[in-house]
């Protein structure tokens, strides 16, 4: 194992964005280039111009969190195909922010970790928001959710999710208003039908428009009859997956077409 793989390994472990470009066909098969934002690339694909073009494309793949094969000429020409380069990006894990340190929070943290999320639990009540109650969370913060989002909201993207589990209007309304100001791909809000109706009214009073309300998954989760915190966590995570992939969550035996 050499220098480039060591860089790849360290980037993945420290959750820093990076990409590895590998020539898989054409001149220089097996050459590698390791790319990070704002840093000189390490290694070479055998041609300075090719390195420059691939570095640019690799930075784009990091942004998009993608991996795939691209074709170039020997000097990086875009409309030629003599060299095939596999560009694999290593994005930091997506984040799940859970607002409300309740029983459901522990179960949801566990299931979210299984799916690879970096989990942050946030609640303004210091008695409940303790690391001892949520050992599986990466971070447990005593703060108002809206104040946390004022700080970190701009760093959140489409892959990230926010779950509001407080079902206390005092916390819910400012948390949801702040969540709607982010670009997260999913905002789920817990509560009974009655809580939901009451909260919807309060959100309207707080100035949330129809488009904002439509963006909320409220009440949170799929209709699978979940009762326990663990079952509810599965119902929430299944909803997150289904919305990301654009599927209506039906049984596979009731549908046809490819499974993936």
């Amino acid at each position: 194992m050499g220098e480039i793989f060591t860089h790849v390994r360290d980037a993945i472990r420290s959750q820093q964005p990076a990409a590895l470009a590998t020539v898989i066909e054409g001149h220089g098969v097996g050459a590698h280039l390791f790319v990070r934002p704002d840093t000189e690339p390490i290694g070479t694909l055998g041609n300075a111009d090719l390195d420059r073009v691939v570095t640019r494309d690799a930075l784009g793949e990091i942004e998009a969190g993608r991996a795939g094969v691209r074709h170039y000429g020997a000097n990086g020409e875009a409309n030629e195909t003599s060299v095939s380069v596999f560009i694999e990006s290593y994005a930091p894990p997506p984040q799940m922010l859970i607002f409300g340190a309740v029983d459901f929070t522990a179960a949801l943290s566990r299931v979210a970790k299984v799916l690879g999320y970096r989990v942050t639990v946030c609640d303004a009540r210091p008695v409940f928001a303790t690391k001892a109650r949520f050992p599986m969370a990466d971070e447990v913060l005593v703060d108002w959710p809206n104040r946390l989002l004022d700080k970190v909201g701009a760093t959140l993207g489409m892959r990230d999710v926010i779950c509001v589990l407080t079902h206390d209007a005092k916390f819910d309304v400012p948390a949801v208003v702040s969540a709607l100001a982010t670009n997260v791909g999913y905002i789920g809000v817990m509560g009974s039908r009655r809580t939901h109706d009451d909260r919807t009214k309060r959100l309207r009073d707080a100035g949330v428009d129809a488009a904002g309300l439509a963006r909320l998954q409220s009440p949170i989760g799929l209709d699978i009859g979940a009762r326990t915190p663990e079952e509810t966590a599965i119902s929430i995570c299944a909803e997150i997956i289904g919305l990301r992939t654009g599927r209506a969550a039906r049984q596979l035996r009731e549908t046809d077409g490819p499974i993936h």
Partner: protein
Amino acid sequence: MREILNDLDRWQKKGKRIAIARVVDLEGSGPRLPGAAMAVNEDGEVAGSVSGGCVEGAVVAEALDVIATGTRRIVTFGYSDDEAFAVGLTCGGTIHLFLEPLDW
């Protein structure tokens, strides 16, 4: 790649020679996306996976040959409909793997 790092560290400490196979392209339906990685050491120990278990056996054989010869290669597995015992993806997709020795 993340899920195989601990095994790679362990093998590296023992001085094992290693080949790594990565899904680089996928046509049609397939269980693992580009970037899915599997590593094989010179003793035939395996870490990670590149499909739902359909082609891993064949990948081990290719990987051992990569370790022995040092030759990098693309290996393609497609659908094995009529040949019940041929290696392929039962889901109907085609995957392209790139295999290389981990010496870089």
